[in-house]
Every structure is written in structure tokens, then in C-alpha cells.
């Protein structure tokens, strides 16, 4: 008696279960570490949730000024809330901005309150930060309402397009034009280098390289523009930015407060590709994901990046492994399945025989391993060349894999990938490509049945097997994942736990550490 195959790949449920168990085993010590530490960015995010905005004359945000003084006076390890709201309670200033100003002028000294003073500071801070969280909650309700009113994207995959002019005022018309042409999600690419800034720039910006700075004001401007487009077009246009780099938690908070809808947020990207300290990253990560969970924001993970430095066939299992880890960390932080835009990419050398079927195998594996996640499918970049015609074709076949394997979010590929940041016409042509494929072959998945025990099924199972093995090997390391990251397991990058940027912004929490934001977020 033959049993019905499970999905198109017929994955063994026991193996899948084992994969998740291994990911949990690998991830749990990291969560433990994350819980024991705080960072300057987490504390500054807390201040932002409490409503502290703006910057000094040189553009240094008040949250940074205030944080620096607090840290100098009382250290980072107790958190910012107790000293700050103690100072406010002591009448040092009427509000946070004034306090920050005075502090940077050197006219306030902070202390770590104790006993009733501590309780008072705790209560006050919780109340004030609570308002920020409430604002996030309201923004989430607002989103749901607008989607109901304006309508949602007409189908999956959602069409995800980037704008990257470096100037918010050029980005806006380009984004609106992209929406008009069919984009469901607009990502405003960030200027190179912002991830290494230990502060979030302020105001509307017009000078970025290959992307526009992520600032609260830029978020607001683009959000308003896309709300207008949504109204015009009768469908809600989602907005995406990056919660990564040294300010990940702050940007997550700003995103929640300005109703962004999706955020790039990977558990290891900053470590591997920006040489940010691993502990710093995991702490910031967890906090930012808690914020995203609360805000109803969909995260996009960055597995595609591995395949720009490592070979897409050899490293396929590192993608799967990273997806499993991202899933574990995300769920631990409170995110739900529908919020997991796990990444993967069409990056196999197109000269490899059967490359298209191999892409199908990988994409289908992700689909069947994470059946309820809105997977994010990333286009070819590495093997794109100056031959824009060939590039346009390759993007078409990328789109076809997206359609055949039910991807949730389709990052639209650009024929000029190897040449320039996208021109307005590149986007238009790219959308036309997507439209053709979806319209003409969107239902082809009905006729797509991987040959039983054939190339696709075999390959998918092989990759899953290699991923299990890899997690086994990670667990053999003395310090598990941190050691594995240190020895170049992912994306061929070696990142030791005691090096990297932003390490000096990390502290082990003291016994009296208090953070109202974390408290509220953990309660959920």
C-alpha cells in the first residue's frame, strides 16, 4: 500500500523535527547570553520609546548624548532607565530632552537609585516607555485598518522593489512610481556605512551613497508618500528598511513607531558582513525582534548574503541552517510564523548544468520546511554581468522559480545588477518581467511535480541532510555557535566572539538592571 507523499519533496517529518531540535540546541545558549547582557543601542532604543527625539547642533542624537553621560556616571550594566528617571524624579529636568541637554552641558550627575527611589524610577520609566509601546500598538492597529480599507496586495508573492538614490526626495517619486507599476513592498536601501554608525542620523537626508540614510524623518516622509499611493491605487503599500548594524534596536523602535511593515533583520548578518561583535549583535537582535513582534512587522532574514561570497551549491546547507536558526531566534523573541520572511536566493552559476532545477530544489526545500512563513526570494546578483539582456532573462527564470515554489515575497531582480544601482527604467522593466511571468505562468505550479526520487527531490534531501550534519558539528564546538561563527562556518567569514565592532557597547547586566521596554515586551 503506497502512502501519499508529503508535499512535493516528500520530506521525512522525523528529519524535519530533528532539524528544529538541533536548531533549538544550537540557539538556546545564545539566547541565554543575550538575556544576560545589554547594549548601548538597547538602552538608547528604550529612551526613544520613551519619546526622546532630536539631536544637538552637530547632529548627535539626544539619546546618544544622554546615554553617554549616564554611562560615564553609572555605567551601562544597570540600564539607562533607573538613573534617568531617578534624575527626572529628582527634578533635574522637566522632560527627557531638557535632561539630555543639561546632561551634555555637564550640569546633571546621574546616580543609581536604590530602594524607594529605584521603585519610583522604575514605575515612572515604565509608564513613559509604555506610551512608546502603546504608540507601536496603535500603529499596528492602524495598519490593519488601512489594509482593510485600502485593500491588500492582490496576490502572493508580494512584489518587493528597492529604491536607492541616496536622496529621500528622489526616492519618493521613484517609490511612488514603482508602486504604481505594481510593487507591493518598497524597500528604501540604506546608505553604505550607516550600519557602522553608532547613532541614528536625524532629519530628512539627501546625501547617501548607494542608498538613503535610515532616519525617523525619512521613515515618516516615505510612509506618508506610500500611504498616499496606497489610497490612489487602492492597495496598501508596505514599507521596508533595515534593522541591522550598530543601531538595530533603535531602528526597530523607530520602525514600529512610524509604521514600517517589514524590516531586514538577520541573526548573523551584522556579525558576518559588517564585523560587528557577535554578542552585541545577538543582544540587539533579540530586543529588536521583540519590538518587531509587538509591531506586527515582518522580518526579512539575510541568507541570500552568504551566497554572494560562498558558492550557492556548496553553501546551500548553510542557508538552510541559518533559516532554522533565524526561525528559532525569531520565535523565541515572540515573532509568529507569518512574520518570518526567511531569505534565500537564486545564485547558482547559470552555467552549471541543470542549474534551474537545482534552484527549484533549494527553493522548494525552504518552502516545505517553513510552510507557514512568507519566504523572501532574492534574485541573482553574483552571476549577473554587464550583458543586460542575459540579465533580464535570468531574472525571468528567477521569477518563475518564485511562482513554481510559492514564495511569499519576491525581491525583484534588476537587469543592471552588475552595473549601477537601479535606474527608474530598470525597475519598470523588472516589474514588467514579473508581471509577465506571474500572469502567464503563475499557475504552472499545478503542473510541476518533481519526479519521484528524481534530481530535485534528491538534491533537496541532500541539502537538508548536510544542514543536520552542520548543526551537529556546531554543537561539537566548545562554545557552540559562537565558535562556529569564529571559524568561518557561515559565508566563509571568521568572526571571533571577543572581537568586532561595537563590543565596547556591550555590558553584562547587573543584578539591579532594569529595562521597562524589555519588561513590557517580555510580558506579551
Amino acid at each position: 500500500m503506497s502512502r501519499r507523499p508529503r508535499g512535493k519533496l516528500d520530506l521525512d517529518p522525523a528529519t524535519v523535527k530533528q532539524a528544529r531540535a538541533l536548531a533549538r540546541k544550537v540557539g538556546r545558549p545564545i539566547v541565554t547570553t543575550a538575556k544576560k547582557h545589554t547594549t548601548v543601542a538597547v538602552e538608547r532604543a528604550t529612551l526613544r520609546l520613551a519619546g526622546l527625539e532630536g539631536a544637538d547642533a552637530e547632529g548627535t542624537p539626544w539619546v546618544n548624548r544622554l546615554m553617554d553621560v549616564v554611562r560615564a556616571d553609572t555605567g551601562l550594566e544597570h540600564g539607562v532607565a533607573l538613573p534617568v528617571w531617578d534624575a527626572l524624579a529628582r527634578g533635574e529636568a522637566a522632560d527627557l530632552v531638557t535632561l539630555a541637554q543639561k546632561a551634555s552641558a555637564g550640569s546633571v550627575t546621574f546616580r543609581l537609585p536604590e530602594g524607594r527611589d529605584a521603585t519610583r524610577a522604575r514605575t515612572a520609566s515604565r509608564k513613559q516607555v509604555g506610551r512608546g509601546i502603546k504608540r507601536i500598538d496603535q500603529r499596528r492597529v492602524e495598519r490593519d485598518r488601512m489594509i482593510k480599507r485600502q485593500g491588500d496586495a492582490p496576490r502572493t508573492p508580494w512584489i518587493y522593489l528597492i529604491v536607492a538614490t541616496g536622496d529621500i526626495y528622489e526616492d519618493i517619486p521613484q517609490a511612488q512610481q514603482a508602486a504604481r507599476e505594481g510593487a507591493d513592498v518598497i524597500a528604501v536601501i540604506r546608505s553604505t556605512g550607516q550600519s557602522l554608525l553608532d547613532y541614528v542620523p536625524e532629519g530628512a537626508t539627501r546625501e547617501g551613497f548607494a542608498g538613503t540614510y535610515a532616519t525617523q524623518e525619512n521613515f515618516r516622509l516615505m510612509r506618508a508618500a506610500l500611504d498616499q499611493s496606497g489610497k490612489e491605487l487602492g492597495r496598501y503599500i508596505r514599507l521596508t528598511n533595515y534593522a541591522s548594524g550598530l543601531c538595530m534596536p533603535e531602528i526597530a523602535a523607530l520602525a514600529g513607531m512610524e509604521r514600517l511593515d517589514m524590516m531586514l533583520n538577520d541573526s548573523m548578518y551584522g556579525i558576518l558582513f559588517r564585523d560587528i561583535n557577535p554578542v552585541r549583535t545577538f543582544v540587539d537582535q533579540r530586543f529588536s525582534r521583540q519590538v518587531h513582534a509587538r509591531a506586527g512587522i515582518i522580518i526579512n532574514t539575510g541568507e541570500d548574503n552568504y551566497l554572494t561570497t560562498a558558492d550557492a551549491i556548496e553553501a546551500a546547507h548553510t542557508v538552510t541552517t541559518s533559516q532554522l536558526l533565524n526561525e528559532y531566534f525569531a520565535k523565541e523573541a515572540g515573532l509568529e510564523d507569518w512574520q518570518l520572511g526567511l531569505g534565500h536566493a537564486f545564485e547558482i552559476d547559470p552555467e552549471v548544468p541543470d542549474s534551474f532545477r537545482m534552484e527549484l530544489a533549494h527553493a522548494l526545500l525552504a518552502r516545505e520546511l517553513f510552510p507557514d512563513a512568507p519566504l523572501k526570494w532574492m534574485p541573482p546578483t553574483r552571476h549577473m554581468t554587464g550583458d543586460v539582456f542575459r540579465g533580464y532573462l535570468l531574472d525571468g527564470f528567477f521569477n518563475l522559480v518564485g511562482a513554481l515554489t510559492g514564495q511569499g515575497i519576491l525581491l525583484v531582480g534588476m537587469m543592471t545588477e552588475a552595473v549601477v544601482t537601479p535606474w527608474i527604467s530598470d525597475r519598470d522593466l523588472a516589474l514588467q518581467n514579473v508581471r509577465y511571468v506571474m500572469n502567464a505562468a503563475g499557475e504552472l505550479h499545478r503542473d510541476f511535480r518533481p519526479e519521484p526520487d528524481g534530481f530535485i527531490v534528491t538534491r533537496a534531501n541532500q541539502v537538508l541532510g548536510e544542514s543536520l550534519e552542520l548543526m551537529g558539528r556546531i554543537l561539537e564546538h566548545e562554545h557552540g555557535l559562537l565558535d562556529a561563527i569564529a571559524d568561518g562556518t557561515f559565508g566563509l567569514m571568521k568572526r571571533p566572539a571577543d572581537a568586532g565592532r561595537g563590543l565596547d557597547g556591550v555590558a553584562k547586566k547587573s543584578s539591579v538592571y532594569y529595562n521597562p521596554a524589555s519588561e513590557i515586551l517580555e510580558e506579551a
Partner: protein
Amino acid sequence: MSEPVPTAGFETGASAPSSTTGEIVRPYGDTTGDGMVQISFTLPIPHSKVAEGAAAQLANKMGMDPALVVHAKPMGPGFTFFVVYGRVHHLVDTSKVVVVERDYPLLTPKEANAAIKRALRRRLTVVGACIGTDAHTVGIDAILNIKGFAGEKGLEYYRELKVVNLGAQVSVPQLVERARAEKADAVLVSQVVTQRDAHLLNTREMSAAFRESYPSDRRPLLIVGGPRFDEAMAGELGVDRVFSRGTTPGEVASYLVHQLTTQRKAS
């Protein structure tokens, strides 16, 4: 996938200066004024550093600077294909653009019929053909056959028009003979094949033949159409009007009515 209206040129002819106020613009890549353009071409030389330099030289001569040769593909021993991106420094002055604007009112079939009846008191005869060796009839059929084009009925649908469609590969003498026999008010000629300027040569041959065999005041209206014509070339080709890609039957009918009931009414 919108198919656009016909190309405009700068020559004179049945042309009118642009009605919109002029503007100086540059090509737009991803920022206002960046002047960015893409080009591709083949040079009949083997691939080498020199060939790439030659490609950049051509791009420079076209006004590109900087010119980035982003792709160079050897094609056999003697040819190389290039893709070049870069900035051009030319300014485009839209006030200098001269287009063939529609200088007649668009009529419905009903209006067109009424106008003919009123002005001529007889049916208007049009003879259509693909001349020379051209066998592409889809275009002329789109204009003439009842079925029409882009949702508009073709000229056969107009009660007051008599349409004689001679089909494909009609020689010029045949066409002239039939036009005379039918006492054609207008002759509609289609030309689709453009290799070696076939469309221009054939059109000139045709207009010369009509000039030769008719006194100039009795010559039927000569109209030529096809996807690669420049609408501003009517004068050069010796015809009264040129229609290009995207033409609809209604435009042609309206033009016929306008010309034959207004301008030529007297003759």
C-alpha cells in the same frame, strides 16, 4: 505594454511646432539631470583591449562621457558585441521638437458619412494595396477591413466609403491602372518591409507614377502607412500624408473626410 504613437521628426512637412511649452531636459537614470543612457552595438573587429577602447571611442563620439564598457562579447573571430552605459551631455529641447499633429477633427463613422454625403453627394472611393513585393497585409487590413483595429471599425464599415482592397504584392502599374478604373479619390498604400529602404523606394516609385499619369489637380490623395515610417517625410516621399505605427481607422477616415470634403471640395 503600451504601444506608443508614431515617431516624430524635425523635418518640415505637414508639421506643427510642439504645443506644450518647451523644456530643456536630459536623460534620467536615477537622479534628475544625470544624463544616463544605455547603448549596444557590434564592431567588426576581434575582441581585445583595443576593441574595447574602440567601443569607448564610439560612445564618446556619441557624446557619452564617461562611457563604461560594461560588456564585451567576442562573436567569432571577427566581431565583438558591446554594451555601454554612461552619461550623455546633450540637452534635449522639447520646444525644438516638431511633430506632425493631427490638424483635422476626429469624426465618428456617423459624422464622417454625413460629411461626405453633404459635401460630395456621392460615395468616396479608396483603393488600398501593399505594393512592391511586400506581402504584409495585416496593417492595411487593419485600416480597411470591417474588423478594424484597436476597437475601431475599418473603412469598409463606413457606408459612404467604397473600399477596394487589392491585397499584397501589387505592382505600381497595376495600382495606377486600378485607381484610374475605380476613379479613386484616395489611394492607400502600405509598406512594412524596410530593409535596404524598400519602403521609401517603393513609395517614391508609386508617387512618381501617379504624378505622371494624372494631371496634378486630379491626382487622388496619396496616403502611405507602415510601422517604420517617419510621419514628417510626406513631402520628401511625394505623398499627401504618412501614417505610422498605432494608426487607427478612425484617424484615417477623418483625415480623408477632412482633405476630400474641405480642401478639395471645389475640384
